[in-house]
């Protein structure tokens, strides 16, 4: 350990010395985009396309939740309600006012962001379990309010939400919809990556660890709490809108209960709280596990319970944590080898 740690300073210096090659920064994104562009060809039927869409929408949700919970450390249970707000807002814009999807999506996203920032206000004073309770209360009231509002379809559901129209053609096939969801998900991951690697992300982490010390370092704690809630709500709103317009264009408050929230939390915990790729990895894995266990619905809850317990027991930092450890180890080994060669 001592050896390795002594070399770390050299490594940082070496990194800083390297020129900021465009390829170094952007190549992974280009590769990722290319990969996602071609991914549907690796699947066998439309159901797989549908599952890919579900995964990507969950990725957007989980990445957003990871920002507010994993990085900023705000224990919110209201993230799914934000998705509901985004979904219903988008549905209302499109179905009641005839706004095309391409406008309804950003409008719903912004609207949800605004609501999210307002929801963030209790976080000024509340922390931990108290904040969880407050957000849970808000989330449940959103669901119940939708369930009794006839304008929103109440308990029967909001039907006939128009699909996106692309050059006069409605996008109803899952594979076509994939090419709307995928770029948004990729952009979402990219933005979260940029945000979290910047000073904003560092400030989030600082207020998660110690808001008093963060304030003493000049971080406006309230502003950054609000920002975290706002950003995560933007993600949830975008995902909600995508849920609303996906065929068959139907929404129901039953799809936005605490169970969905727990599943979402599981994604982030499994992927790694506060790990940049955590939400992405977790969303993909949990969605696939959920689908694979569909046939064993009697045991599904038990399987998920077991997965949660095992995750918490054996990898408390999630898969992202394992990756971090592996990367750190590799780095030390490489540096040590380089030093040995030099000597």
């Amino acid at each position, binding site marked *: 350990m001592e050896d390795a740690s002594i070399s*770390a300073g050299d490594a940082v210096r070496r990194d800083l010395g390297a020129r900021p090659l465009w390829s170094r920064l952007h190549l992974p994104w280009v590769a990722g985009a290319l990969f996602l562009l071609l991914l549907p060809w690796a699947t066998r039927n439309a159901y797989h396309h549908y599952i890919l869409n579900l995964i990507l929408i969950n990725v957007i949700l989980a990445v957003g939740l990871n920002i507010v919970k994993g990085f900023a450390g705000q224990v919110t249970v209201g993230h799914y309600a934000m998705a509901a707000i985004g979904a219903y807002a988008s549905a209302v814009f499109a179905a009641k006012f005839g706004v095309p999807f391409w406008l309804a999506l950003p409008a719903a996203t912004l609207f949800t962001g605004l609501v999210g920032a307002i929801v963030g206000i209790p976080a000024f004073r509340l922390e931990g379990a108290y904040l969880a309770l407050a957000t849970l209360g808000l989330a449940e009231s959103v669901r119940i309010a939708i369930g009794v509002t006839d304008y929103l379809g109440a308990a029967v559901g909001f039907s006939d939400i128009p699909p996106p129209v692309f050059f006069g053609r409605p996008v109803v096939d899952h594979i076509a919809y994939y090419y709307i969801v995928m770029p948004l998900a990729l952009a979402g991951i990219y933005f979260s990556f940029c945000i979290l690697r910047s000073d904003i992300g560092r400030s989030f982490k600082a207020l998660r660890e110690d808001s008093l010390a963060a304030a003493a370092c000049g971080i406006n704690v309230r502003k950054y709490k609000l920002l975290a809630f706002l950003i995560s709500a933007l993600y949830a709103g975008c995902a909600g809108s995508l849920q609303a317009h996906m065929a068959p264009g139907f929404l129901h408050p039953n799809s936005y209960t605490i169970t969905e929230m727990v599943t979402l939390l599981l994604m982030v915990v499994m992927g790694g709280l506060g790990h940049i790729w955590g939400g992405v990895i977790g969303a993909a894995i949990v969605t696939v596990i959920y689908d694979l266990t569909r046939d064993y619905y009697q045991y599904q809850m038990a399987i998920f319970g077991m997965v949660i317990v095992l995750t918490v027991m054996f990898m408390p930092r999630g898969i992202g944590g394992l990756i971090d450890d592996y990367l750190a180890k590799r780095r030390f080994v490489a540096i040590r080898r380089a030093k040995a060669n030099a000597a």
Partner: protein
Amino acid sequence: MLLEVTGLSKRFGGLVAVSKLDLSIREGEIRGIIGPNGSGKSTLFNLISGVYQAEPGGRIVFAGEDITGYPSHEIARRGIARTFQLLRIFTQMSVLENLLIGYHPHVRYGSAAATLGSASVWTEERRLKDEMMELLGFIGLTDYAEIPAGELSIGQRRLLALGRAMAMRPKLLMLDEPAAGLSPVNVDKLLSTVLALKQRYGLTVVIIEHILKVVMESCDTVTVLEHGEKIAEGAPAAIKDDHRVIEAYLGKEMGDAEVRAFLKAS
């Protein structure tokens, strides 16, 4: 005067922690604040740095601006950096990140640029890291840059806390018991670091300290508190002969010889 505190009071319920305190700190001096446990030293820091709000009537003026009642981060942004008695470094973040957090008030790019990941952000980040690595070299923690701060030893943590405060490029640095729990060797190391930093950046420093050696050796002026009140102020040499100070510390009268022996020992 860089910092001018007048009539500052703070009560916690019935307990008076700081009472009608006046304090003036010249630009460029090193001020020591001593006093027995519970004499209000840390409360004074918390009042100045905005963690606590003072009772009405108190005034804090920093560099000509009245900062009474400002929130913590605003005060920090105006150039007052502090360390905490319990350090409060960010243990889950790397050593380098801890310093970068300190640098937060001076980050130049905005939220939109950060979100889009524009080239200017990466350039700025690179510059920041370069600068922080230099500071890290100054406090002697270069080789620990990527280590989570939680894995550092107590001495290294104290240095890191100092480094984080320095990263803020403050005009006034307030150190709350920076040498507590350190071995004599490390105390010397820390002291020399503080002095070097002061020289290099032209700082004004306020130190709360229990270890008298630190105060006596490095401070220009020493202020002594007891029960939230200032009982003495002056050069270290004058202070250490002040009987009220000795009384406050030891609770009884002592002869000069005894005091000298005590001071030598500590």
